[in-house]
């Protein structure tokens, strides 16, 4: 009885994680822009990973395996935001095009343009 409840809870969690991974991948294909694709992947990937890892933690009976899965959980929680941040910074500094109809609403971009102009006039 207890085993069946545990397996059903794990199946629900793994299905949720698979749903989020599928949505992230569809967003990776459908969205028009680098930043939009990064937005789709950066959150859906992390959440899908977490749900699937928690579901597998419920399935594993060994304490060592559960602790290793928790370690992978913590690694994903730290690695994915770092990777997404560095990718967004790289795309911004390479001056990737925004999709048509979008607009920039920060002061950082004007700062960067001013800095580039100063570099160009200085050299």
């Amino acid at each position, binding site marked *: 009885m207890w085993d069946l409840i545990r397996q059903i809870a794990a*199946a629900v969690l793994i299905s949720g994680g698979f749903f989020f991974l599928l949505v992230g991948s569809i967003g990776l294909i459908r969205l028009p822009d680098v930043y939009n*694709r990064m937005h789709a992947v950066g959150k859906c*990937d992390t959440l899908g990973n977490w749900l699937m890892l928690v579901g597998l933690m419920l399935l594993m009976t060994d304490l*060592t*395996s559960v602790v290793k899965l928790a370690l992978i959980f913590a*690694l994903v929680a730290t690695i994915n935001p770092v990777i997404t941040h560095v990718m967004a910074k790289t795309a911004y500094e390479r001056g990737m095009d925004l999709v048509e109809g979008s607009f920039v609403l920060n002061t950082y971009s004007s700062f960067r343009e001013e800095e580039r102009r100063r570099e160009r006039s200085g050299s």
Partner: protein
Amino acid sequence: MIESFLNIVTIGLVVVALLAMYRALVGPSAIDRVIAINIITTEIVMLILIYAFLGDTVHYIDVALVFVLGTFIATLCILKLLREGKLI
């Protein structure tokens, strides 16, 4: 019951990885390809973990742990190469 469910999830993860592979093939810029490869490695980690449960070989969890760390370093190296033009 849970084994057949995990087999279906395995097939679904392969399909999702193929969807991401489409973006890695036709992506217009290099950053798109880096994003697609990143999501493919995520699904490979999940496949290794599911196989570790299905085949009852718990040592494969260590393989998944090392794979996460390796892909982190690889993606950082690719992005550093894109940003600075050289690796070291």
